[in-house]
C-alpha cells in the first residue's frame, strides 16, 4: 500500500550517493543523516553568529539567542532547582536539536528526523539512563526508596511498588512515542489535506489555501510545543532523580 503517493512516502529513508557497508553494517549516508547534519549546522551557525558581537545592548539576533538561553535556563531552574545548573549544556542541546529538527522538517521537501522512532527513542533512552545514573550516584541505594510512595499505608505497598516501577520504566517509551507520533501525525495530516487540494485541479485547487495555511501554522506550533514538552519532561525526570519526590 505504500506507493509513491502514499502520505507515508515522505518518511522513507533513502541512502544518498550509494549504499556503504562496513563489516556487515549499513552505514550509508541517508537523507535522515543529512538533515541531522543540517540541523546541527544550523544551530551552531545560529548561536555562534548570534553571539559573535556580544554587545551589551543586544541586537535582534543576539536577543533571540539570549531568549533561548533564558528560556531553557528558567525552565531548568523552575523545575530542577539550583542543582540543575550542571545539566544546562545537555538540556539546552537537547532542546535546540529537537526544536530545529521539528521546524526544519516543516520545510517543503525536507525530511523530518524526529518522525522516526529510532531517533526519538535513542534520545529518550539516553535521558532515562542518564537520569537513573544521576539518581543512583547522588543517593546510592537510597534511590530505590523512590519506588515507595510516601504517606501510602503499608498494606498498599505490594500494589503501589509494582505500579511505580512500571510507570518508571514506561517513561522512555512515552517520551519517545509522544514526539514521534506528533511529528508523523502532523505530516500525514498535512500530506492528506494537501492531496485533497491537489485533487481539486488547477481551477479550484487554490480554494483551500487558507485552511492549509492555518493547519501549517498549527503544525509549527506543535513542532515548538513538542520540543518544549520533551525538554520539560527531561527536567521533571531530573528533578525526581535529584530530589526523590
Amino acid at each position, binding site marked *: *500500500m505504500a506507493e509513491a503517493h*502514499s502520505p507515508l512516502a515522505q518518511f522513507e529513508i533513502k541512502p544518498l550517493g550509494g549504499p556503504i557497508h562496513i563489516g556487515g553494517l549499513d552505514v550509508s549516508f541517508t537523507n535522515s543523516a543529512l538533515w541531522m547534519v543540517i540541523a546541527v549546522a544550523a544551530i551552531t551557525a545560529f548561536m555562534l553568529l548570534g553571539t559573535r558581537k556580544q554587545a551589551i545592548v543586544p541586537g535582534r539576533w543576539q536577543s533571540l539567542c539570549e531568549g533561548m538561553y533564558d528560556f531553557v535556563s528558567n525552565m531548568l531552574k523552575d523545575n530542577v532547582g539550583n542543582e540543575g545548573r550542571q545539566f544546562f549544556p545537555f538540556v539546552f542541546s537537547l532542546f535546540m536539536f529537537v526544536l530545529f529538527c521539528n521546524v526544519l522538517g516543516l520545510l517543503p521537501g525536507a525530511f523530518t528526523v524526529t518522525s522516526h522512532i529510532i531517533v526519538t527513542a535513542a534520545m529518550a533512552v539516553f535521558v532515562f539512563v542518564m537520569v537513573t545514573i544521576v539518581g543512583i550516584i547522588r543517593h546510592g541505594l537510597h534511590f530505590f526508596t523512590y519506588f515507595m510512595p510516601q504517606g501510602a499505608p503499608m498494606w498498599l505497598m505490594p500494589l503501589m511498588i509494582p505500579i511505580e516501577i512500571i510507570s518508571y520504566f514506561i517513561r522512555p517509551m512515552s517520551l519517545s*512515542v*509522544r514526539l514521534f*507520533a*506528533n511529528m508523523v*501525525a502532523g505530516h500525514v495530516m498535512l500530506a492528506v489535506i494537501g492531496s485533497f487540494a491537489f485533487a481539486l485541479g488547477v481551477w479550484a485547487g487554490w480554494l483551500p489555501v487558507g485552511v492549509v495555511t492555518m493547519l501549517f501554522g498549527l503544525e509549527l506550533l506543535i513542532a515548538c*510545543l513538542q520540543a*518544549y514538552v520533551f525538554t520539560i519532561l527531561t527536567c521533571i525526570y531530573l528533578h525526581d532523580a535529584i530530589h526523590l519526590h
Partner: protein
Amino acid sequence: MDVEAARYIGAGLAVIALGGAGAGLGVLFGNYLNAAVRNPAAAEKWFGRMMMTFALVEATGLFAFVVAMIILFV
C-alpha cells in the same frame, strides 16, 4: 472474514480512543477559559502550563492514531 476487511475495521476501532482525547481537550480548554474569565490577571501566568497540558493530552490521542497507522500500513 477477509483479512483486509478486518484490518480496516480494526483501524476504525483503534481511533475510537480519539474521543477520549477530544473530551480531555474540551475539559482542559473549558476550565482554562473558565478560570481566565474569572481572573483575567492570572490568565497569562498559566498559559504556558496550559499549552504543555494540551500537548500531553493531544499525545494520548496520537497514540491511537499510531496504532491505526500500524494496523493499516505495517
